[in-house]
């Protein structure tokens, strides 16, 4: 291990990143979608001389500015903090590989936020043409953010030829880059529509613009539903076969110990996406007069759950890797896993403070990026009823290469026989502590 490990009991380190990242994705995709929604609507309003629509947009931009530039930006920084603490090796690798892209992204983000601030404070102060131009600048830069980040996100699942040639361009324009970009683009339109619906639902019931705006915002979901299926199909064609198997293996069983949860959550993405379409149809589109802000919040909650479930599924699809074929989810390099599989683990560790407890250190360095002891994906739950020998036997299975049935879900466990025994002993103590808490208390 090259970095200090940071474990979070209960929630699990993965979920810490997950919660911040899902919130960020929800807001940032809205930022991209609304970045197009607002100037396009402004263009329409100016063309048709609709002052009421311009007034609404002015109000909407304020909300949009606060949400994206404050919560969006701070949650984005939050991702950096959390991934560098939880997944330092993978983060370092992404920075090394894509330093140029990150640099451009920061520049683009700066222009994006600056143009948004000018756009908001320029309402009714700038010449309409100039204001409109700044709106377009915002739209382009916000979309550029997605264009760049999408390359890095998709790289982690499908690094493609980068594995052999280590070329920036091979990694960036990897096999799933374009289907993912197009899919996310449709999502940004849908989220722009949902937030537009929410804002319009807050207008007074008798406001003359209310019905028009609710229906107009609803229509922004149409592109998403028309074409996202095609892009999803394309995406499924390019993801690795093992990932697809992992996603479908829960169809005939929902048991613990496999990745059936991936099937279940992926299925939820589809179901909830479909219900959002009907909710928009029966709510703001067909029944705008009786559509309230409380109902709009349900739509946003549904959108948030779909975003969260989709992002979670995408993350889990990578299992057992953080960067497919290159680095495992616990930060170990795939190449090193072959070379040093049964060697004493901590001999190669550049950062290890064992304090004599090898088992605990093994857990922290090799297990805790995905598992907790008693919380999320609790090892005391999975290993319930097993003694040290049984746990040790299980750990040896994880070193059996092609014969290891868990190789598509979990990284191999590295370490000598003594390391495995120490880990098994540590885990047995933890399992027994849960089974007989009074013994542990003594």
């Amino acid at each position, binding site marked *: 291990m090259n970095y200090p490990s940071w474990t979070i009991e209960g929630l699990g380190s993965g979920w810490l990143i997950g919660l911040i990242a899902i919130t960020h994705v929800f807001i940032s995709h809205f930022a991209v979608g609304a970045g197009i929604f607002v100037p396009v609507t402004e263009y329409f309003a100016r063309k048709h001389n609709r002052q009421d629509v311009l007034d609404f947009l002015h109000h909407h931009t304020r909300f949009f500015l606060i949400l994206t530039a404050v919560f969006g930006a701070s949650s984005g920084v939050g991702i950096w903090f959390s991934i560098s603490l939880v997944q330092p090796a993978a983060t370092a690798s992404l920075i090394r590989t894509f330093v140029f892209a990150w640099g451009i992204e920061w520049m683009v983000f700066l222009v994006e936020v600056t143009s948004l601030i000018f756009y908001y404070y320029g309402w009714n102060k700038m010449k309409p043409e100039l204001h409109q131009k700044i709106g377009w600048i915002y739209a382009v830069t916000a979309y550029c953010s997605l264009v760049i980040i999408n390359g890095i996100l998709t790289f982690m699942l499908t690094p493609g030829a980068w594995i052999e040639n280590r070329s920036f361009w091979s990694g960036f324009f990897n096999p799933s880059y374009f289907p993912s970009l197009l899919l996310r683009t449709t999502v940004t339109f849908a989220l722009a529509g949902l937030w537009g619906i929410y804002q319009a639902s807050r207008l007074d019931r008798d406001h003359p613009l209310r019905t028009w705006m609710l229906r107009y915002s609803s229509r922004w979901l149409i592109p998403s539903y028309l074409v996202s299926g095609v892009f999803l199909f394309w995406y499924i064609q390019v993801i690795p076969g093992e990932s697809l198997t992992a996603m479908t293996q829960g169809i*005939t069983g929902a048991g613990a110990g496999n990745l059936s*949860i991936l099937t279940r959550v992926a299925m*939820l993405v589809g179901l909830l996406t479909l219900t959002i379409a009907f909710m928009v149809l*029966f709510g703001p589109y067909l029944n705008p007069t*009786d559509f309230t802000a409380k109902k709009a919040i349900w739509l946003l909650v549904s959108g948030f759950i779909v975003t969260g479930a989709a992002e979670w599924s995408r993350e889990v699809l990578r299992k057992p890797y953080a960067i497919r074929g290159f680095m495992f989810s616990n930060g170990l390099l795939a190449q090193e896993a072959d070379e040093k599989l049964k060697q004493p683990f901590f001999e190669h560790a550049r950062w290890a403070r064992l304090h004599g407890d090898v088992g605990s250190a093994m857990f922290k360095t090799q297990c805790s990026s995905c598992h907790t002891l008693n919380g999320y994906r609790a090892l005391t739950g999975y290993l319930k009823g097993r003694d040290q020998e049984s746990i040790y036997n299980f750990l040896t299975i994880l070193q059996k290469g092609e014969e290891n049935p868990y190789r598509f879900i979990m990284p191999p466990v590295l370490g000598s026989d003594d390391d495995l025994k120490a880990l098994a002993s540590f885990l047995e103590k933890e399992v027994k502590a849960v089974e007989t808490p009074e013994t542990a208390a003594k």
Partner: protein
Amino acid sequence: MANLLSKFEDRIPIGPIKEAALHKQVPIHKHSIWYYMGGISLFFFLVQGVTGVLLLFHYQPGVETAHASVLRIMTNVDFGWLIRSIHSWAANLMVATIFIHMFSAYFMRAYRAPRDFTWYSGLALLGLTLTFGFTGYLLPWDDMAYFATKIGVDITADTPIVGKELAYILRGGEDLGGLTIQRFFAMHVVILPAIFSMLLGLHLLLVQIHGNKVPDSIEERKAYRKIPFFPNFLYADLFVWLIAFNVLSILAAVYPWPLGPEADTLAPAPKGIHPEWYYMAQFYVLKLISEPIAMAFFGLSGLLWAAVPIWDPTTASGRRARLATYVGIATLLGFIALTLIAYATLDAGP
């Protein structure tokens, strides 16, 4: 097309139904959220019907086959686990929404004439729903289902006068076995759905005739507006159904309904055996007091609850209305508190 519709109309005249739907008005005010509860209950019932039929294609009643067939549904049938999970979760959500629907109708005083028959039919539907739950719970024939049902039927046997005979009929003998599964299955998939559907039709008809009750305080201030049932409230209802569907999907997918080990009739009852959550309050009371007294208490309090249209008619003084409110609050809080205590003391034993 118009010609085709006209021919259809000649044979099945839907005009009056359409007319009624167009004229029906639904009051909208700050408490109108409670009006959706009946619709959500209906939605869950429809889900039960669809998923129940799908399960019927694979489920095989019988001591040797019940558990094995459910296990096969869970592990070998594509999306079988999902259908069973939805069926089980929807059953629980249906009970929960009917309870909410009942309490909201109670506190809105929707039981008063002319809606008293709506109240009675609603209570009968709740009773049938609980019986649905009781009969369905046994069908997987796992250890929890077996022992919880055994306790339930034993309690039934303590009902004064008819208890023993009723328990014998339910079991199909002295002990729970193949005939019990067969009888519970027959009740669950044939008898109860038939009675429930007819009663539901009556309930919906009464709701259609008498309309939604506006709470007195809102009626006095006229602090409400009316919207047409068709299409406005129907769209709103469908919107809420979709939310209910989302909640159901999330629960069914993230927390798939488990299946315990096959029931071993010779083994001692495992620790922590308990019925479904909606029987837990009664289950706890039965731990505290002797069964005949408890059964008499349940019977009398149930009767008192059902008879609220009689003991709280519209009066000038409003004294009885206040009493009914206190009874309602005490019942609601008592039910919640006893259920929570029952779960908290589950492992402590009787």
